[in-house]
């Protein structure tokens, strides 16, 4: 009971950091808004994202479609919030099969796993292993990100799982570098010496002794990375390499809607652009606020 209370208190302390910072609060509100609409998407709209209304294509906001419709008469609000679902809440595997956790989240999560392992190993062992791993990652970082995405997606084909793989590959070097630098610092601490004098397994030292102490900067970095991943998904969708149509993808919505801007209907391009921008900004604000507050604690 006592331990549980302690845990709750610690969680509360963690959250109180967010409340202390205005920046983080604004970020949190935006992010929570998108998570909320994504989770409850089916209940927030009478339309499905694929339902076409031939009688009302390319409309502005109206009482029937309050954000308007796209060129096929599909409800933009419905497509927007179902798009958020794919980004934040579900990862479609194939057909009707899906697993919880959005595409962007899975991508960042996988990148974290791979990047942390590489960073820990090269930071803890050092020497030639570090040299080899880091030079390979450097080589990856030298390729422009957008080009890297294009190469990966072109090679693998457009699907949600492949987007996850692309995000993983592109995100890994940065995370590995961050974790490596944290590891280099933490491994000089005396509790690591103490673990070594106990003859602990290196993997135990890396994952149990070092990793939990690097969590702060990793969490902040991961949040920023979710933002970048959403951005990347938008870019891929825009280039036609994202989720295959007709699934509601923000990037491809912008790409399609773009053609009708000059025809007098900017809505189809505007809403998904705002969606991407606001979510990315929200995540960035949250991460920045968290970083600032946790720095002030020291």
């Amino acid at each position: 009971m006592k331990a549980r209370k302690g845990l709750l208190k610690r969680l509360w302390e963690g959250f109180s950091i967010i409340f202390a910072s205005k920046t983080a609060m604004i970020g949190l509100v935006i992010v929570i808004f998108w998570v909320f609409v994504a989770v409850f998407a089916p209940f927030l709209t009478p339309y499905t994202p694929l339902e076409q209304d031939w009688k009302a294509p390319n409309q502005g906001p109206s009482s029937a479609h309050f954000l308007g419709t796209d060129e096929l008469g599909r409800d933009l609000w419905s497509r927007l919030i179902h798009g958020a679902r794919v980004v934040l809440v579900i990862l479609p595997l194939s057909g009707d099969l899906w697993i919880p956790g959005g595409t962007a989240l899975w991508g960042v999560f996988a990148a974290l796993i791979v990047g942390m392992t590489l960073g820990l190993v090269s930071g803890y062992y050092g020497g030639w292993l570090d040299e080899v791993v880091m030079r390979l990652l450097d080589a990856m970082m030298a390729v422009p990100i957008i080009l890297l995405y294009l190469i990966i997606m072109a090679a693998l084909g457009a699907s949600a799982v492949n987007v996850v793989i692309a995000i993983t590959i592109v995100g890994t070097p940065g995370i590995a570098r961050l974790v490596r630098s944290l590891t280099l610092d933490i491994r000089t601490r005396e509790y690591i010496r103490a673990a070594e004098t106990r003859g602990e397994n290196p993997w135990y030292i890396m994952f149990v002794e070092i990793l939990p102490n690097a969590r702060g900067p990793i969490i902040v970095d991961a949040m920023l990375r979710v933002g970048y991943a959403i951005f990347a998904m938008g870019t891929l969708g825009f280039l036609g390499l994202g989720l295959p149509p007709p699934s509601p993808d923000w990037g491809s919505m912008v790409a399609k809607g773009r053609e009708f801007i000059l025809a007098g209907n900017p809505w189809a391009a505007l809403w998904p652009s705002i969606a991407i921008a606001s979510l990315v900004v929200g995540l960035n604000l949250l991460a920045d606020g968290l970083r600032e507050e946790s720095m002030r604690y020291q």
Partner: protein
Amino acid sequence: MNKTNDIKLATVLDVENLTIAYETRKGDVEAVRNASFKVGEGETIGLVGESGCGKSTIAFGIVNFLGPNGKIVEGNIRFQGEELVGRSEGELKRLRGDRIAMVYQDPMQALNPSVCLGDQLAEVLTFHQKISERDAWERSIQMLKRVNMPDPEDLMYRYSHQISGGQQQRVVIAMAMLNNPSLLIMDEPTTALDVTVEAAVLDLIEELKRDFKAANIFITHNLGVVARVSDQLCVMYAGQMVERGAVTDIFRNPRHPYTMGLLASVPRLGESKAESVLHPIRGRVPPPAQRPMNKCIFAPRCDYATDECRKALPGFVEVSTGHVSRCIYAKEIDSQPRTTKKRHIEKNLEPTRSESPEGKLLSFEDLKIYYPQESQSLVSLLGLGEKKFVKAVDDVSVRLSKGRTLGVVGESGCGKSTLVKGIIGLEPVTAGDVEFLGIDINQPVSERETNLIKEMQMVFQNPDSTLNPSYSIGKQIARPIRRFKTVSRDQVKGEVIRLLKAVRLDEIYYDRLPRQLSGGEKQRVGIARALASRPDLIICDEPVSALDVSVQAAVINLLLEIQEIYGSSMIFIAHDLSVVRFFSDDIAVMYLGQIVEIGPAEAIYSPPYHPYTEALLSAVPIPDPDAEQKQIRLGGNVPSALNPPSGCRFHTRCPRRKEMLPNEGEICEKEVPPWCSTEYGHRIFCHIPLEKLKTVEAVVHSPTA
């Protein structure tokens, strides 16, 4: 030491009722309360106290460097008759560096690494005075000569990383003295330095005080240092000044329980565990937010406290002229600061042979630990160049028997830490035989058997990094128990609590996180963790050097108790010679990777000495202004371990060889010295014959001893 009681000197700084607070999320927190003191011309006032007592805050308050959240709430600071509180930033800026100078603890941070020293020094002059660059340069050189820097002309063109720590601190002091300031504030100026260097810097500070007639404020936690340099002393506790008076008065006749506690908690040089016991002050310094306004702040930790103390904040009681104490019983309490009562277990006071063949636990013979030095040249990249090694430990042989404590002393960089890392298997051993419990342990720890690993555990130096901040205390102590399976699974928690009790910590610490503990408590948990595997040998790498003195005494007492109960052997590394003497049965003195003297503790601290040991002992600051100490100062720097001097490694700095050996000790440069043995297994690694070394007088004469 010049006494300033007789002549009234012109007051330079007059601090009155100074209260300084820091703004925090939970409101203002007062770090210093009602501090008052005066400093006269050519006088040194020492501010002494444990960490968190507000010593540095006073110093920063005087120059108004309190940072964005600090502010002076109340009080006056009069500097040469002018009020400083409320002055604008611009005016204060002109004062600082011109008439008020400061010397900080870390010289590395006071010097700009990207500007050469000459420019930094000259800038101090050109910024505050109308002076040509050439004159400024000349005067800087003269000042460097004044602080005894060799080769000042050359030094002006060097950068801070090219000179040693002691020299850096001299440059910083030179910089502070350049404008001939009226007030010099020194915040722990020698804390980061080795004893021999510290002694030389303290000599310099004293010399400068005589010549420049500046008023000095000297902040330190080290009672020995303050006894050497100050005339007046202010003892600070939890933001309050608890005792103020002349240094000799306070040391001879302390009148506040806190001062008495501080003095009783440090071992004097030469005292050993067999004949005296340290008295720690219980509890800890209360954090600034929890300091009562209306009662004696020290009462919770005081042995003399009565209900009377908890009724009102005591004012200053004048004990004698100029000596005041903030204690209502100041005149009545027993002023005998040291109760040197014997420990309850009578120890054999006769020196015992340290190297008895039976009961041998650990021995190492000709141990070498070299680090390959990678050169940046292309030749060595191809593997063709000559391989260079840093000889961190070179040909060291020691035997340790069961139940005894080996103390290892030496200055930083002498290889004492590397030596124990080699033994415990954290550093690969280059050559030599290490035997532990009769088993050869030359391999690194990852290749050793679990049974062997558990018999050798380590206590670390830094309380802030010895525990993993992510896990609770209970989990961290339980880990070695689970790993070495010392008790069955369902008894682990009970065993952890037993260990916590053994290190005098309550059961409630089980669920706490390291950041909720004080430094001393963390160190106890570190000890409990080392004890968890029930080792035969505990290696303590400077276990008390990062702790405050009152806490230090408690941890030393704890280690001694543990040794008595469990009969464990210990290797105890420290740079504080009084502590090592107090704690150890045998002592090894190391210099540049080699042992120069080894033997029973009492034999090391009395003649015959190795010349290096003699110099070390004469440099130790003694917390007793009446003690007489020989002044032997080592010249030069510690040579590089990459290319150690030929023959005897100490010959470049040895003060004895020229007077005691024929041909000015030519032999020392050419030949490796022999081991000369005296009785009781005391051995000295020196060319000078024992008979001559025996004629040397003892380093310290203390009238109280």
